[in-house]
């Protein structure tokens, strides 16, 4: 990473840290919180779906388990941060439990398999915990957005940092090798199952932490709500909009997803879904590599103009 990039990232983080101190509008802080949450979720999903090529439609299960464990422990009086950690670990445990059987499935079958498992969990939680997970009134009256903001900002930074380091590590290269051609990777001594399980565990852990942060942030919701398949689809949508298998893609996708949706909802009323849907189709049609591919295409064009014979390895998956 070049020095200029490091300075830019540090400056950006400093600005983001200062935001709650200078902005008084809760609505804007809420918007940032949602962006950080979605960056966390999109980046977590990207570790499994983007780098390892395993399209999961069941990440809502990890998110929901993280939220469930955190909320229950927190309401029982446990400190919030260990509760969130417990949520992440529970998500990992469940991921490893379902990982072995589901990784026997490939491609679309894997996606459907994960969706089915998440739905089973969704219905079960709905039956076992049918009530509202509302914060007590005393907690509401002392509710502060700032600690939630910093928690989610920290989480987003950590997930993006882990993604970046993973890409550079031998495990990351192994995951990408599995994504590109599983049999070829196996023939080179890379254990596909081990790498897929590792990706699943890391992805589930951070998704679970995201769920825990959600439980800490959200004042009142049904326990079943974080298990809704909409969460899985949102994660997938954001990564595809931004660009799969890249560090920046999920960030761009999450910002695009949250900010544009918010802008459309606040400004065009009931037509927001049609417009957003239309934009999504345009991105998929004309930018199959996601928004990040615009930058890559520009870079590619510049590189080829200067050095037409240079080919460069990219972590981006082949399509």
């Amino acid at each position: 990473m070049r020095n200029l990039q490091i300075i830019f990232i540090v400056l950006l983080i400093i600005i983001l840290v200062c935001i709650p101190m200078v902005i008084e509008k809760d609505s804007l802080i809420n918007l940032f919180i949602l962006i950080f949450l979605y960056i966390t979720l999109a980046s977590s999903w990207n570790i499994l779906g983007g780098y390892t090529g395993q399209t999961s439609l069941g990440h809502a299960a990890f998110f929901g388990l993280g939220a469930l464990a955190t909320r229950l422990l927190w309401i029982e009086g446990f400190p919030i941060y260990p509760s969130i950690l417990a949520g992440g670990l529970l998500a990992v445990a469940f991921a490893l439990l379902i990982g072995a059987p589901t990784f026997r499935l490939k491609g679309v079958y894997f996606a459907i398999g994960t969706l089915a498992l998440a739905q089973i969990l969704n219905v079960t939680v709905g039956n076992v915990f049918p009530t509202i997970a509302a914060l007590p009134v005393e907690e509401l009256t002392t509710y502060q957005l700032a600690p939630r903001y910093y928690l989610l900002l920290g989480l987003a930074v950590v997930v993006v940092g882990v993604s970046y380091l993973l890409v550079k590590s031998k495990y990351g290269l192994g995951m990408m090798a599995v994504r590109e051609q599983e049999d070829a990777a196996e023939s080179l001594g890379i254990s596909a199952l081990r790498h897929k399980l590792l990706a699943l565990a890391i992805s589930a852990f951070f998704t679970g932490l995201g769920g825990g942060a959600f439980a800490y942030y959200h004042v009142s919701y049904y326990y079943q709500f974080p298990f809704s398949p909409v969460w899985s689809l949102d994660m997938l949508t954001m990564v595809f909009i931004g660009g799969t298998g890249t560090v920046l893609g999920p960030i761009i996708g999450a910002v695009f997803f949250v900010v544009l949706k918010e802008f459309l909802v606040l400004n065009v009323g009931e037509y927001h879904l049609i417009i957003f849907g239309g934009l999504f189709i345009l991105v998929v049609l004309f930018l199959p590599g996601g928004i990040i591919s615009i930058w890559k295409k520009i870079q590619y064009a510049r590189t080829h103009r200067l050095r037409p014979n240079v080919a460069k390895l990219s972590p981006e998956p082949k399509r």
Partner: protein
Amino acid sequence: MKAKLRSPIVIVLLLSMLLAACTTPTAAPEPTTEPAAPAEPTKAPAAGSIEGKKVCYLIPESGNAFLSGLTEGVKEKFAADGVEVAIYGAEGNATTQYNQIENCISQGVDGMVIMAALEPEGVAAAVLEAKAAGIKVMGVPVDEQGPYDAIMHTDQYEIGTTMAEMACEWIDATYPDAEDNSVEVAVIGTKGTENIKKRSEGMETIDDCAKAKLVQFVDVPEATISEAVSATENIFTANPDVKVILVVGDSGAQGVAEAMAAYAPDNLDEYAVFSGDVSPDTQEKLPKCEAGAYRGAVAIGGSLDDLIQSTYSIMKGMISGGDYPVETLDPLTTFRCEPTPVEGAAKPPAPEFIEIGGSIPLTGPFGSLGNMVLPGYEIAVEDINAEGGVYVEEYGTKIPLRLTYYDDESDPTKAVSRLETLFSEQNVTAYLGGAGSSMHAAASAIAEKNQVPYCGIAFALYQIHQQGYKYLFSPFPKSPQQAKDTFEILNAAIPEGERPTKVAIFSYSDDWGKEIGDLWEQNAAENGYEVVVREERPVAPDNDWSDAILKAKAAGAEVLLSLPIFPDGSGMFKTMAELGWTPKFSVVIRAPEGVNWGESMGAIGDYVTIFPGWHHGEKFPGVDELNAAYEAKFGRPADLLTGPAYACVQIVAAAIEKAGTLDRAAVRDAMAATDLETVIGPVTFNEDGTGNVLNPLIQWQNGQLQLVWPEEQATAEFLYPAPPFEER
């Protein structure tokens, strides 16, 4: 003429007194030298029966508003005891007053109240005559006992000084930056009668007020409204900068206020008049600042009610032969409109709009409900704004409402975000809720966090109200009421021998399903019904109910109680028709609430009843207008959730008006104290925010929604039993 009459009367009275002294006097209490406290209203004198007795009430002016209020109040109290009270106004004429006293004596009345005697010496002689005839006489206000059996009196000078103090406080508050002796004041009094002279002297102490300067004293013996108007016009001619006038009594003050309103219609806030007594009307208007420039009055004997009570109590003691205080010193009370500074602006500038807003599910699973709710809010806001908006006392004007709403896509997380936006960006005074329990659960918590009053409908879940939230209000029937009404309506509508007895409950395994399922079961047992089947399924659009239906059929269930969402409910009924089980009576909440039930179900959907909270056929004020407005937009009468949504805006608007401010905590308190007639009928709230509202039963009949219960609101008769599906 007067002198000629007076001498024989006095001689006759003295002779009568001598004769009376020879007879055994009635046991009269020892006169007290210390002023007595006003009679305790609750302490009844030791009395014999007073029914059939008569009392004369003599006042100087029958047109005086204060005296009329007082005498009529006393008369009313005595009427309850069977005592006749005759009121005589002397219209300022002393001879008339003599004649009236003579008349009362000749009538043989038992008691007499002489108020503000026009010629005290002459009246004292008449009092002696009355006493000789065995009549108990009370003098009001009389400073010395004299021949009276009892006296009530007031420190007239203190009345005047109290008026002056009130006026001085008003000047200080209204003209905070005024220099000393710069605010001109006039007094309308009289030096003619002893009592009013003292009061007038007290009023003149306004000159001691630092900023006030007494520039004119006008002597008007009895200031009626018209005389006060003339006197004020003269004052303004001589001293056009006079801002404050002190006048002896209530009628005079009304006249002065009238003249001030004509003199300075655009800046009446700068003028004030204060009175030495108060009529019942003014007493009510003053604290609300509804009497124009009339801004304060001194009430003799506490409030008028207190004075009525003490007069009644003393006279009752006198004519019944019981105890009574011979001397009562009336306390003084003030009634006033709190002053506001004139400098700069009398009131802060009003905001352009009162912001209200909501996060409403217009898309997603709750979209159909949200789309029934939103028009209710919109039409209500249009109607209120057509009248100029909501009057807010803090700003002294009507302010239009502005509704801002966002679609939350039936997603509680987005609802939270939207509500935060409404709070931060729109600075809403109140939230309006969306639809569906899960949406309200999230939204009402945000309302509690932000301490914004929240009015939500379209959810029956009782549990939300049990979290201790203070800002959540819902004028919508809740599960306990729905469960209770189910069986009470059945028992009331169907004769005992024909009633069904076996009940099947098909509910969901979510919180509301469990809550109302349990309540139905509990109420069934209490009302003599037996639950033979209770089945639960997850909330889903396509549950398989065939197993449950077969169980119900086998158990002979005659009643179905259920709460499926739309596609699930239609599937349930189609399966029932296929499997040949027709409940005689069914309450199915949710699925049949939309017009699509009638369109898609045909005859299978008939006879089903629902508790949707409202129906466009209800006979409450405003329903016809709401239906007309809805029809103009959508070509049909208002939908089931539109009425409760409309009522929510009515409730919020009324609460803002009642609070007189846009302060959310004050609006919340006013909402909690709601007692309002709305398009859904009368609404009050319980401590937990649940509403006390009508819970109408609606039935599908020939593809139409008909209101069948309560009978006084019904648009059609309740149909029972439902014929088998195959015979329809």
